[in-house]
């Protein structure tokens, strides 16, 4: 997809071409919402909100960064705003966003153990501070560099390094307590 041409078309009034952007990025945005937003966020609703806000924000996009970076930044902002707004955040074992891991393994027993491990991990990242979780999720997301994360989170690279370091440390501590 030639993003520049698509955006120019949309800005010129061809709204239908926005569908291409939605189709291209909706899975990525949904995954980002799921990981940063945690169990109590309605991923479907949040993804929809991100794309509606992105549409309004398109005239501000000046191609100074990649469109993906612009979308991730918007997603982080929308999700963080929702988390702040909605203090009933936090983990629940029977929440609707039960994590799932793509696995080729047909062994049911192993799959159950694996599933449980990821539930625990998901619950643990849900307990991290929002900034730490965001930095760590972005770090493990699409192989983002520290610079990319700093760009998305609009902070310094040093702060990103510190957030990821603390997030890893806290997460390991939480997971070792769970075992």
């Amino acid at each position, binding site marked *: 997809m030639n993003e520049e041409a698509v955006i120019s078309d949309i800005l010129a009034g061809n*709204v*239908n071409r926005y569908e291409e952007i939605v189709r291209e990025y909706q899975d990525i945005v949904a995954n980002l919402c799921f990981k940063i937003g945690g169990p109590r966020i309605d*991923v479907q609703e949040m993804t929809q909100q991100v*794309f509606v806000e992105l*549409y309004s924000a398109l005239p*501000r996009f000046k191609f100074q960064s990649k469109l993906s970076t612009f979308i991730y930044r918007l997603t982080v902002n929308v999700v963080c705003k929702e988390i702040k707004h909605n203090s009933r955040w936090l983990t629940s074992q029977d929440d609707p*966003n039960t994590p799932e891991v793509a696995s080729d393994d047909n062994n049911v027993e192993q799959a159950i153990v694996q599933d449980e491990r990821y539930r625990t991990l998901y619950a643990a*990242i849900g307990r991290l501070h929002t900034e730490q979780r965001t930095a760590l999720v972005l770090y*493990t997301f699409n192989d983002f560099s520290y610079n990319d994360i700093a760009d998305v989170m609009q902070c310094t690279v040093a702060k990103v390094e510190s957030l990821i370091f603390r997030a*890893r440390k806290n997460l390991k501590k939480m997971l070792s307590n769970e075992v």
Partner: protein
Amino acid sequence: MTDDLLIQQLRELRYPGRVDVTEAVMADVRKRPLLVSESAKPKWSIKRISAVAAVLAILLVSINFVTIFTRSYDSAQLATDIASVYDFHADYASNSSYYESYLVDALLN
């Protein structure tokens, strides 16, 4: 748990459901007019112009005050004022040596 394993597990986490928001988003955005050009918006809004005008007015008044204030301490003006008190011509008063000797004389007598 090692760092690598942790990172790998985080990478493997996926949203369990299928997301397709295309229809809903498109239905929503079709209803919204896109404010296309930021540059089409006037950069000099009335609010901005008023603020700049207010600052300029304050500056102008301040400069006038400073001018009036310094002028009142202008030496020639001071000499004229003193001359009017001591009843002699301002030209003499502005001549400092004459004025000083006059003051010395006045003090000694």
